[in-house]
């Protein structure tokens, strides 16, 4: 019988090892799987390549993972936001690598990774510094650059509801990168606010079909990153 439910965040991230490529959902704190990230901080895997739109804020969540020196490279579109200090400091010191990707290209590269498409042409970033070294091709008189797919060993994703088969629905703008990241990772680990009985999610309303999901952990009351930042909290908790 298929049962993707894990009892704890720690169990769910147990096999994330050094050098893994890890996708982390979220747009700022909306959709960021903070409990799974903290479990990965506890796990201590190093030299990770992390694919995420931002680089976290304060000293919790993704920022804590970076501060704990577990991330060798970030692939993201917007590495600085309000209260984002950990990444900028390490970047200025040359101690973390950055691959900057336009946000839509990032989403599409991840989607392509999950859909078996190795690369695609896009007009985004043509004639800008972010197209340097990329193949250019003209279709119907317009110039496009070749962008490659991104795949991951693991995805850490937050959603609202899941069933034991891994069907997911999300909450408002916390959906963002979750669905495409679920598709693009060999092992997709999801934290859900609630795990519901099979059949409770309307098949017409399923956003991520269960086939893309490997593990589910129920986290009924996820921490609010902005609240923790406001309180100057730091992970690991002290």
């Amino acid at each position, binding site marked *: 019988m298929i049962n993707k439910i894990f009892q704890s965040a720690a169990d769910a991230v147990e096999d994330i090892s050094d050098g893994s490529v890890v996708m982390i959902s979220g*747009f*700022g*704190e*909306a*959709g960021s799987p903070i409990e799974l990230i903290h479990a990965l901080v506890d796990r201590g895997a190093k030299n990770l390549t992390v694919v995420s*739109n931002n680089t976290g804020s304060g000293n919790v969540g993704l920022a804590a993972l970076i501060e704990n020196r577990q991330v060798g490279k970030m692939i993201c*579109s*917007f*590495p*600085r*936001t*309000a209260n984002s200090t950990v*990444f*900028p400091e390490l*970047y*200025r010191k040359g101690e973390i690598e*950055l691959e*900057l*990707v*336009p*946000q*839509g*290209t*990032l*989403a*599409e590269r*991840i*989607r392509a990774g999950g859909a078996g498409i190795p690369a695609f042409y*896009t*007009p*985004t*970033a*043509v*004639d*800008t*510094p*972010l197209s340097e070294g990329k193949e250019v091709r003209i279709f119907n008189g317009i110039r496009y650059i070749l962008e490659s797919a991104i795949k991951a060993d693991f995805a850490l994703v937050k959603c609202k509801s899941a069933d034991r088969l891994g069907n997911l629905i*999300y*909450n*408002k*703008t*916390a*959906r*963002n*990168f*979750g*669905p*495409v990241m679920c598709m693009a990772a060999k092992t997709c680990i999801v934290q859900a606010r609630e795990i519901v009985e099979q059949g409770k999610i309307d098949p017409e309303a399923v*956003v991520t079909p269960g086939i893309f999901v490997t593990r589910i952990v129920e986290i009924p009351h996820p921490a*609010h*990153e*902005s609240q923790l930042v406001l309180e100057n909290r730091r992970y690991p908790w002290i």
Partner: protein
Amino acid sequence: MDIVKTNSGWDRNQMAQKVALDIPDGSYVNLGIGLPELVAAYVPEGREVIYHTENGLLGMGSAPETGFEDPELINAGKKAVTAIQGACFFHHADSFAMIRGGHIDICVLGAMQVSEEGDLANWSTGEPHSIPAVGGAMDLVSGVKTIFIITQHVTKDGEPKIVGKCTYPLTGKKVVDRIYTDLAIIDVTDAGLFVKELAPGITFEYVQKNTGVSLNRYF
């Protein structure tokens, strides 16, 4: 005697109002972070405009009342917003398919520099110690049908932002359609930059003096 008032022009809200007047009924619009966000407040009555925010919402409403903010209902600037009746949520690849697939009618963005040919620089100064961050700007300028720029005419140091050639790294080449500044509204055309409207008390000569490239006028 100098009777021409040359040191004022439109304020931020009046600039936003000018942009809003040029958004047709029924448009799907994406507003950039900061000054462009003001535009939403000035859409004339009787026009229905649907706002897209690239983090996955079509039908973005105004900011919620204090105490009703939802950290999972935000805009691209990561500020709390609301969703109108009839709004919908979607994932990032769909959201950027709306942008990159040419489905969004108008995008209003800020600028560091705009060139005579409509090149836009608005994401990086290119300085060695700056943290480069691009977000969705390059996707928007390459995919949205019409790009409006709303910006102060000159920098804080008084340097022209409308120039012959951008010195900052480009966001996109030949992408800007119209520029709204505190001094004037300027169209980007194949024949060069054309002043369409001057702010009250502002002369064409004054606008020209504060612009890094030759301007034309329709009137």
